[in-house]
């Protein structure tokens, strides 16, 4: 962020720039290739069909809920991991971040064995009359499971970087732990919290494997946009491509908005913090 104000510094070797351009092309070309395959004449009817709208709406709802859950659970997890020391912490950290590297389908199977009808917790839920499988709740759980590590990882890193100086001062001035967390710690890492939440949202929006394995696929209930795209591809490739583009656009908009918000906050903090 600070590099933006300074002019391009002369030290970037040409070959680094070349590789960077190749890298950018590698990411952008497939998106362009996809856009060229869109049947623009049919685009509006394709993306506004009943099943498409239902899938988009479900995806947005569940991803937002999953992001909220990630913040609710992920912030305390990051704070505990960054600010405390206990036996087995390193192992716990690696395990908590496991969904990052786990294939989503494996995550889905694990969730099934936990919350499924015959799962570890699912049997108790069933006794209480709560059924999770094949419900929208299952979609949110799958999305939260895969998205949570993104928030924990980015927030924990930021917490370690800002250090405990201000928190210590606040504590010596008589602030209680909750006040310190609310008034000092969280405002300091707000940009990281926002970018972490955006990453989580993006991951939740794109979630496919765990949802397919754990939640099933039913229009309006569990068939999110990625599942709808996968299914449409079977019979209507035009609709699949059109919906893929919608998913990309939604993701780009969300990331751009959050990036703006994060930068504005970061700037304000940088000015007022010292």
């Amino acid at each position, binding site marked *: 962020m600070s590099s933006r104000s300074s002019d391009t510094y002369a030290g970037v070797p040409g070959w680094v720039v070349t590789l960077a351009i190749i890298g950018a092309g590698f990411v952008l070309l497939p998106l362009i290739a996809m856009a060229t395959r869109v049947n623009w004449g049919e685009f509006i009817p394709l993306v506004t069909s009943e099943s498409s709208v239902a899938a988009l709406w479900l995806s947005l709802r569940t991803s937002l809920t999953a992001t909220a859950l990630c913040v609710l659970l992920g912030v305390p997890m990051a704070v505990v991991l960054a600010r405390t020391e206990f036996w087995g912490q390193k192992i716990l950290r690696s395990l908590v971040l496991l969904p990052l590297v786990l294939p989503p389908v494996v995550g889905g199977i694990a969730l099934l064995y936990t919350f499924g*009808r015959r799962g570890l917790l699912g049997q108790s839920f069933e006794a209480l009359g709560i059924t999770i499988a*094949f419900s929208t709740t299952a979609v949110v759980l799958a999305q939260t499971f895969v998205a949570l590590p993104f928030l924990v990882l980015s927030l924990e890193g930021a917490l370690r970087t800002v250090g405990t100086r201000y928190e210590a001062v606040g504590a010596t001035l008589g602030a209680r732990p909750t006040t310190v967390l609310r008034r000092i710690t969280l405002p300091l890492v707000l940009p990281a919290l926002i970018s972490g939440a955006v990453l989580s949202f993006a991951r939740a929006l794109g979630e496919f494997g765990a949802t397919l394995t754990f939640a099933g*696929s039913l229009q309006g209930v569990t068939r999110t946009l990625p599942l709808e795209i996968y299914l449409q591809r079977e019979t209507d490739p035009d609709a699949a491509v059109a919906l893929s583009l919608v998913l990309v656009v939604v993701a780009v908009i969300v990331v751009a908005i959050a990036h703006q918000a994060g930068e504005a906050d970061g700037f304000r903090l940088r000015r007022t913090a010292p």
Partner: protein
Amino acid sequence: MTRTTTIAAAVLSAAVALTLAACSSGSTGAPATSAAPAATETAAALEGSITVFAAASLKSTFTELADEFEAANPGVTVELNFAGSSDLVTQITEGAPADVFASADEKNMAKLTDGGLIEADAPVDFATNVLTIAVPPGNPAGIAAFSDLAKPEVKTVICAAQVPCGSATVTVEEATGVTLTPVSEESSVTDVLGKVTSGEADAGLVYVTDVIAAGDAVEGIEFPESGEAVNTYPIAPVTASANAEIAQAFIDFVTGSTGQGVLSAAGFGKP
């Protein structure tokens, strides 16, 4: 999986070649020099490699058939690629190097004949498959007939209408007048079966062959109305194939007695 198959196939064909070589040269002591006579002896036979694109439901049967075909034709390597039929159609349309295409339905085969990638009169029907009800072991929901699947307390999982098993399901629904209210419409038979084996669903509509392949993990309940939606599997050489001779030989093998024996053991019906 394909790589493992390929390696296994390579090892197998090498072993067969060596054995043949040993026999023809009449000497078991010099395997290094005996490769040459083997080559001359099989010169008239087929040689080369083909890639077979086959529907996911053919995985176990075609893996077995490819092994047997290679054993019968040393010098030939069969590479296999399994996926949903429509995925395979997309891959072939986008230029994937396929020599043979075996589809799980006629609709997907038609996409390639319409697109000129396969000769219009080339496809041959080699197997049929019908739907059956799969339930978890012990049949906890007590399913006995197709109409039981429509009961509100029964959690039924079916294929979405967009995929072959789903359109077969729709046909059966229309023929019986029973309207299902599934808890999930999956995009593949495998996903339906997964929901049943895990016990999440009380019942799922899958193919007879899937139930046989799943072994003890599920129980199959046949229903007479399944005859309303018989799925036919066509196979054909891809026009652009560089190994048309081997491709045709493989197709003949699948439609021949060995192929039909393996397929019927797996639960497929005669075309």
